[in-house]
């Protein structure tokens, strides 16, 4: 309980300052729209083909737009050396990290939820019947992006070329989660049932989330302090 209280204080702080400036969310949303627009030139948006790649498109948008949010996450702490103030407070590295994760998660899910209807409209998909299931896939996939992205945001925050380093490092690492999410989203968007064969992707997503949540929480103190 104590663990959560300090994490929530940090998450609350991040969300509050984001709510005030809305810089990151706005940038991320506009970027997502730009990508959605660009996709329409990459293939025929009216064709049947769209249904086969719908999940892939959706998650590319999520991953690209998400990086903008993740990049800002720890960069925000650099102003006035706030990160030092947080680390020297009694909150542990794991609490601090978890708080930042929660805030990023909320922001990512908000941006994604805004993108989804736009996607459906732009590409003439039907609002999926199993939209709750789609939301579940979104939540699971996004958590994977969030934990890895937030940890690498902390690792790259003091580096030269931080904005370039983060996506290069995290996209290859996220491939298993993205694959699972893409496969499931494609099925759901096409209105097809998820067969026994594809159940495995749910398990993959859950396993990925659990493994990397544990790993990041275990290693974050080393990243932040040494």
């Amino acid at each position, binding site marked *: 309980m104590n663990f959560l209280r300090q994490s929530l204080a940090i998450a609350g702080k991040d969300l509050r300052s984001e709510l005030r400036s809305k810089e990151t969310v706005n940038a991320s949303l506009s970027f997502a729209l730009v990508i959605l627009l660009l996709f329409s030139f990459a293939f025929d948006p009216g064709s049947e083909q769209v249904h086969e790649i719908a999940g892939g498109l959706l998650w590319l948008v999520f991953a690209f737009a998400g990086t903008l949010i993740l990049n800002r996450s720890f960069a925000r702490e650099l102003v006035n050396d706030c990160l030092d103030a947080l680390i020297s407070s009694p909150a542990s590295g794991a609490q601090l990290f978890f708080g930042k994760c929660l805030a990023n998660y909320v922001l990512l899910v908000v941006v994604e939820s805004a993108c989804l209807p736009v996607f459906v409209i732009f590409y003439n998909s039907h609002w999926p019947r199993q939209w709750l299931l789609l939301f579940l896939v979104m939540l699971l996939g996004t958590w994977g992006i969030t934990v*890895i992205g937030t940890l690498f945001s902390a*690792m*790259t925050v*003091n*580096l*030269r*070329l931080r904005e370039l*380093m983060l996506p*290069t*490092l995290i996209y*290859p*690492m996220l*491939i*298993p989660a993205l*694959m*699972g999410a893409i*496969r499931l989203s494609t099925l759901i968007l096409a209105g097809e049932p998820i067969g026994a064969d594809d159940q*495995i992707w749910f398990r*993959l997503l859950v*396993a*990925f989330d659990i*493994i990397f949540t544990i*790993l990041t929480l275990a*290693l974050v103190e*080393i*990243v932040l302090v*040494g």
Partner: protein
Amino acid sequence: MRLKIILTLSVVCGLILAWNLHTMFMKVPDEANQGAIFRIFYFHFPAAITSFAGFYLGMFAGVGYLITKNLKLDSIAASINEVSLAFATIALVTGSIWGRVIWGIWWTWDARITSYFVCWLLYVGYLMMRRAIDDPTTRARLCAVLSIFAAIDIVIVWKSIEWWRTQHPGPVLEIRGGGGMAAGMEAPLWWNFLAMLLLFTVLILIRMRQESMRREIDSLRRYAHAF
């Protein structure tokens, strides 16, 4: 002392390589189905296995650094990962050439190739990260963490891409009982494996020398700036 070891190993490695090349091109006949190109496998397979084992060795060296905080282990980790990346590149390129001849395409997105490519990208990221950090202690720490992530991720990537698609020719060595590789063709493979391992070791030793010199130069520079 270190230099003598490196020299001896390189000479031995060179001799074995020369002998292997002689055997491969003069003694071993063309393979029945694949023709002359099958010889590339003598390099492709050892490079792939060595690089893969190297990435895990590199991770253990990284973990060792995190436990002991001895920068020598970081030099080892860095050298191993760099040389492994070079070997992985060899494996990708030789595989690609082989694919062009046999399948008629330079690249195909089959499971094993894709996984291997992901793995390669992860370690390109590792090298980028090393370049981007100036303080050797921070660099050692963050790169060790990165290699732990990469090594664990590879396993998941491998498994999941396997579920995604499969098209690569079955593992040649596992079916050798069924005649995957004739006996006369197999011996040079192991000899070349040995040569590649020696090359791997020599390169790592050289790279480690460079790393320790680099650290020395770096600290001298800091001394100079401190005045």
